[in-house]
C-alpha cells in the first residue's frame, strides 16, 4: 500500500492527481491553432473537437461537457482558443468554477499564426506557474474514480470487472467516490442496481434513466445489434446486450447506489454514483472526467490503447493472452484470476493499491503511450 496518498490541492477546494496545462478550442476552426500551440511542448496537453457552434438542442450538453472537463482538478490551468469575442462564454464559465483560465482569439491576433504566438506565451507562463504547485497528502475521500470497460470479451464479466468491483467497494468503504456509467451496458442490470439504491427516489431514478435510454433506442427505430455488443465483443464470446450488461455492472461492486447523475455532472454525494453516459468508450470517459473523476479504471478483453488527455487510466486485461499480446497498452492482468494465482478479492485489492499509487503520481500505460483521445457526446442531431 502506498503509505501516503498525494495530490494537488486547488484554490477552489478540489483535489487533482495530475497537474496539466490544457489548451482547448471553443469551436473547430481553432483546432489547428490549438495543436500548434501545444506542439513541441510536452508539459502542455491539447484537445481538439468537432463542435462548430451550430449544435442547437445539444448546446447545453456540449457546453457542460467542455466546462466540466477543463475544470477537472487534474487541470492546473486552461487556455481557450476562440474565433472571436463571442466565444468568451467558455472562459467565463471555467473562471466562475474557480479554474485558472486564459482566452485568446484568432480575430484579436490576425488569425491562426498570431494566435499561436500569443497562445504559446500564455502557455509558457502557465507551465511555470503549474510547476510551482506541489503534491500534498490527500485522502481517499478526495478521489472520484471512473469505472469503465471497453472492447469487452466473455471473460470481462468474470475476471476484470468483478475485481474492479472489489476495488470500487474498497474505495467507497474508505470514503471515496466511484462513477459507474455506460447506460446501454446497464440495460438488463437496472433492477439489481435499483435494489441497491439508498432511497426509493434513487431507485426510481435508476430505473428511469436506463428505461429512457431503451426508449430512445426504440424511438430511433433501429436495431442496436452490431453496435452493442460490438463485432469485437461477439468475437470475444459475448452473445447479447444483457450478458454484456450483467458483466459490465460488476465494475460497481456491491456498494449502495447513492445517486444518479446526468452526463458530465459532478457527484454531490460520496459513494457509488451512476452516470447516464453512452457506451462509446471515449465519449463516456470524457463525461466521467467532466464529472470530476481524477482517475479511471478501464477493463478490456480485446485490448484498446485508450486514455484520457488529463486523467490517468488504469487498463486491466480480462485475460492473460491479451496482456501478453498488448503488454505495453495494459497496466494489470486480471487473467491471473483464471489461472488461480489471484482471487477476485486479491486482484481487487491490488487494483485499489495501484489506484493509490497512480493517483500519487505513478504513470499508466496510456499516459506513457500518449493516448489522449477526446470526444464530445451528442444526443440530438443535426
Amino acid at each position, binding site marked *: 500500500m502506498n503509505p501516503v496518498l498525494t495530490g494537488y490541492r486547488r484554490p477552489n477546494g478540489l483535489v487533482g492527481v495530475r497537474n496539466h496545462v490544457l489548451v482547448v478550442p471553443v*469551436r473547430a476552426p481553432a483546432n489547428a491553432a490549438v495543436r500548434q500551440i501545444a506542439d513541441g511542448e510536452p508539459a502542455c496537453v491539447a484537445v481538439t473537437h468537432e463542435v462548430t457552434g451550430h449544435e442547437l438542442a445539444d448546446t447545453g450538453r456540449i457546453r457542460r461537457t467542455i466546462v466540466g472537463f477543463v475544470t477537472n482538478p487534474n487541470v492546473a490551468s486552461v487556455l481557450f482558443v476562440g474565433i472571436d469575442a463571442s466565444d468568451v462564454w467558455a472562459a467565463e464559465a471555467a473562471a466562475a468554477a474557480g479554474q485558472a483560465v486564459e482566452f485568446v482569439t484568432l*480575430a484579436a491576433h490576425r488569425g491562426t499564426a498570431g494566435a499561436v504566438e500569443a497562445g504559446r506565451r500564455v502557455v509558457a507562463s502557465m507551465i511555470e506557474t503549474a510547476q510551482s504547485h506541489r503534491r500534498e497528502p490527500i485522502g481517499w475521500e478526495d478521489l472520484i474514480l471512473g469505472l469503465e470497460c471497453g472492447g469487452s470479451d466473455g471473460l470481462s464479466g468474470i475476471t476484470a470487472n468483478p475485481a474492479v468491483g472489489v476495488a470500487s467497494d474498497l474505495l467507497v468503504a474508505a470514503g471515496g467516490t466511484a462513477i459507474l456509467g455506460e447506460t446501454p451496458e446497464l440495460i438488463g442490470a437496472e433492477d439489481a442496481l435499483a435494489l441497491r439504491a439508498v432511497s426509493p427516489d434513487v431507485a426510481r431514478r435508476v430505473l428511469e434513466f436506463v428505461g429512457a435510454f431503451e426508449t430512445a433506442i426504440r424511438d*430511433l427505430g433501429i436495431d442496436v445489434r452490431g*453496435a452493442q455488443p460490438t463485432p*469485437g*465483443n461477439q468475437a470475444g464470446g459475448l452473445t447479447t446486450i444483457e450478458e454484456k450488461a450483467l458483466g459490465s455492472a460488476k465494475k460497481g461492486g456491491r456498494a449502495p447506489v447513492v445517486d444518479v447523475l446526468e452526463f458530465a455532472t459532478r457527484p454531490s454525494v460520496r459513494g457509488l454514483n451512476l452516470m447516464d453516459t*453512452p457506451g*462509446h468508450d471515449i465519449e463516456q470517459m470524457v463525461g466521467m472526467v467532466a464529472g470530476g473523476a481524477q482517475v479511471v479504471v478501464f477493463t478490456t478483453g480485446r485490448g484498446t*490503447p485508450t486514455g484520457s488527455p488529463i486523467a490517468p487510466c488504469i487498463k486491466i486485461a480480462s485475460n492473460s493472452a491479451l496482456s501478453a499480446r*498488448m503488454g505495453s497498452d495494459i497496466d494489470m492482468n486480471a487473467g491471473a484470476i483464471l489461472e488461480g494465482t489471484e482471487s477476485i478479492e486479491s486482484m481487487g485489492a491490488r487494483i485499489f493499491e495501484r489506484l493509490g499509487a497512480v493517483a500519487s503520481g505513478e504513470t499508466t500505460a496510456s499516459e506513457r503511450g500518449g493516448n489522449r483521445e477526446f470526444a464530445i457526446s451528442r444526443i440530438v442531431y443535426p
Partner: protein
Amino acid sequence: MITGYRRASGALGARNHLLVLPSVICSTVVARTIAGVDAVAISHQHGCAEVGDDVVHTDDVFSALGVHANVGGALVVGLGCETVQGGQIAERIERQGGHVAFVGIQTTGGTSAAVLRGRELLAILRSEAERTTRSQGALDEVVLGLDSRSAPFAGSLNAIVQREGARVVLPEVDMPPGASCHPDLARAGAQVIVSWCGPGEAAVGFAICPVVAVAGDAALYEAMPDEFDLVGAGRTDDDVAQSVWATAIEVFKGREVAAERRGASDFLLRRVARSM
C-alpha cells in the same frame, strides 16, 4: 487548362495526399503517430457504438475517401473490436481500385507494434504515390463542393462553373451546412471545397480537399484576412463567384489555400443519431 494527379480510374486529383485513416477514434493516436509530418492523418471521434444509418454512412464515407481523386494512397488503421471494421474498409477501397494497406492494432500486438508495421506499409504506399506527378487536365474535370445551399453566390457560381463544363455539388437538402458535410461533398466527387463562412464564422480545414474559405463577415475578414481565401461581403454575387472559380483553378495548379497554409486538416463527420 489545369493540372492535377491522374488516377487509374481516370479521375483528376487536385492533391496527392498520402492518407492515414483510422476506422475508429481508438486508433486515431496510432494513425497520427504513423503519419508523422508528410502524410495526412485524420482525427475523428467515430467508428464505434454507432447504429443504423450512421454505420452505413461512416463506412461509405471512409471507403470512398480511400479512393478519392486527391488521395494517392491510403493506410487504414483499425483497432479490431470496432463497429466500423477497418479491415473491411481497406477491402472496399481495394475493390474500388485504390492503393491501400491495412494495419490492425489488436492483431498486430498493440500500439508500438502497430506503429512500426504502419510506418513500413506507409513507406511502400509513399513510393507508389510519388510516381504520380502533375499532368494536364481540363476544366470540365473540376468538381467543386459548396458547403452551403444558402451561400448568396451559389446560383452565380453554378452558372459560371456549368459554362465551363464543370460541376458544383451541394449538400443534400436535409444536411446541416458547413464542415460536417465536407466528407459527403468529397464522396460526391468534389476535389476542392468552397466554404461559405457566415457572420461570426471562420472556416474549418478538411484533410482530403483544399477548402476555399469565403468570408461573409466583413469585420471578421478585416480582423484576420489570412484565415480566408477571399471576401464575399460587399460584392456582387457574380463577382464573388468569378473569384471563387478563379481561385479554384489556381488551387488545381498547386496554390495553397489558407487552411492548408495554417495546417488545418480537420475531419468533421455528419451523424444522424447518438452513440450507443
